[in-house]
């Protein structure tokens, strides 16, 4: 009996030791900060909000495998060569967008704490942005022009205008989109800089610094940071009001310009950063909301995403709208 009790104690002690030893020790930079440097990607099948056909935050490996297979099949279908005999689409028909060759949206659900996640949002528990009534109204008011108004460049989306990447790829929060989900982190004493592939944006996080004056509201806001143990904590305010609505095919987000966004970057393995975000703004949302996204190490180099320099799309979108207006049948004004 004593032997058995001892052996249990021994096993328990061994487990305790293992638990204490298991936390990953992040490497340090030569100036002593936890080292987050490298190239990272957040490409994933998981999206900001939970899809309607999934009810729980955590899904089983079986369900994940089925959905990942369906995703793969869909991409393969879209990747089939164009039928040369098909002819041009009829006038007014949607010619379609990119085929899969141009997409790089990831093939797996995100795994956090060993759990396969159906949404990045963990709080609230339903996996949705907790918009208030006002938040919903503001979302609609911000979103509608981007889909229906072609009167001038200012009403088009920031992605079409090549001002920042679409879908909050540059954040905050930094969300996965259909392609170019790559980030390079470089650290120097007093700074952590995140280069967002789309559109070659350097988010310069000033450590232990003060925010910009309130009337300065840069794209992607103003980010300051500090270290809490191994975790980089980044606080962003002064968000640009023109960046309040952003959309990807798989998500839409209204980010109130008065929000405070807190991001936490923790290196939890050589090849993984746990990226956490929290958004606080009491009028657009009924509660603070937060989420977790794994960022995985990826191979470089990261190439230049120059957007504006070759932006034929915005010119053609506006010119197309002007052409439409000339046709009496379309209810045009000319």
């Amino acid at each position, binding site marked *: 009996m004593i032997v058995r009790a001892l052996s249990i104690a021994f096993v328990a002690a061994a487990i305790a030791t293992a638990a204490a030893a298991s936390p990953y020790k992040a490497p340090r930079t030569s*100036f002593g900060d936890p080292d987050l440097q490298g190239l990272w990607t957040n490409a994933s099948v998981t999206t900001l909000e939970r899809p309607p056909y999934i009810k729980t935050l955590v899904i089983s490996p079986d369900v994940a495998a089925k959905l990942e297979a369906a995703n793969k099949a869909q991409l393969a279908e879209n990747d089939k060569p164009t039928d040369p005999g098909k002819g041009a689409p009829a006038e007014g028909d949607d010619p379609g967008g990119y085929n899969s060759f141009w997409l790089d949206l990831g093939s797996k659900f995100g795994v956090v704490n060993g759990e396969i996640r159906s949404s990045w949002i963990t709080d609230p528990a339903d996996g949705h942005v907790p918009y208030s009534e006002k938040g919903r109204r503001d979302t609609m008011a911000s979103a509608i022009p981007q889909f229906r108004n072609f009167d*001038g460049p200012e009403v088009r989306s920031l992605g079409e205008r090549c*001002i920042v990447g679409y879908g909050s790829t540059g954040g905050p929060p930094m969300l996965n989109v259909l392609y170019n989900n790559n980030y390079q982190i*470089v*650290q120097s*004493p007093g700074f952590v800089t995140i*280069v967002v592939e789309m559109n070659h944006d350097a988010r310069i996080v000033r450590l232990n610094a003060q925010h910009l004056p309130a009337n300065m509201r840069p794209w992607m806001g103003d980010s300051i940071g500090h270290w809490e143990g191994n975790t980089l904590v980044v606080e962003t305010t002064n968000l640009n009001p023109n960046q309040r609505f952003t959309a990807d095919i798989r998500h839409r987000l209204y980010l109130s310009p008065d929000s405070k966004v807190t991001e936490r970057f923790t290196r939890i393995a050589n090849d993984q950063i746990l990226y956490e975000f929290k958004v606080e703004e009491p009028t657009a949302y009924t509660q603070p909301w937060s989420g977790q996204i794994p960022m995985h190490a990826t191979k470089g180099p990261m190439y230049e995403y120059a957007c504006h320099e070759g932006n034929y799309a915005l*010119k053609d979108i506006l010119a197309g709208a002007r052409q439409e207006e000339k046709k009496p049948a379309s209810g045009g004004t000319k």
Partner: protein
Amino acid sequence: MMKPRIALAILIGLTLPVTATHSKTVSAGKNVAAGAHYVAPRGPGGHPDLNGVWQVMNTANWDIEPHPARAALAFRPGPFGPVPAKEVVALGAVGSVPPGLGIVEGGSIPYKPEALATKKDNEAHWLERDPEIKCYLPGVPRANYMPYPFQIFQSDKALLFAYEYAGAVRNIQFKDPGPAPVDSWMGQSVGHWEGDTLVVKVTGQNDSTWFDRSGNFHSASLEVVERYTPLGPGLMRYEAQITDPDTFTRPWKMSMNLYRLEGTDAQILQFKCVEFVEELLYGRLRKEPLP
């Protein structure tokens, strides 16, 4: 006229107690204390610490060659000689060009005859052609001497340039990945250290960037070898050797000082100018174009 590099040596000799004697940089070192050698503070990785916000104090972005002040960058014929073009006349003194001794070693750029004709044509069509007007990415070396600061982020693993102008970035690779798979606006930068000098070879740039607002240009064959050498506290010498056999009769070099901004100046802000040029580029496509 005094040659710029001699002027530089005098300037440094007069203003810095400890003065560089990098013979390649400061060739006329008569008034430089013999044997004095600036040792830059070590940064991450044991190399000179280039971290910080840097900027030139010259007028090279207007014209990299020696130039007197002039009334404008665009002209039209007037009754008694050229006058500022209609599009810029309202800018008055703000639209005029500040003078400069230039940054081209030897003073003038060795254009091939047909390339010189293109340069002059570019200058005459500056408003339509200068990529800066359209907020296009600046390319190298122009990014380094625009009238905007840039920040160097240096660790033992990485070296990144982030420019205020247009949010341009350059990641310096220290392992040569081979030729760039495709040309780009900022090109591919591969660096190495030669003593205390950071040497960066820039290849894979497209033919759409310029050197300045005066129509100085290059082709996609451009190869730039940059040298960044600390000369004193907060001071670097920047040299760029320009090789482009499609445009120039021989390689040529530009050189200038880079100054580190200190205190509250040492923060790059955001100058994402894409939205500032939308009226210029798309105004005529508005539903109701402005008169």
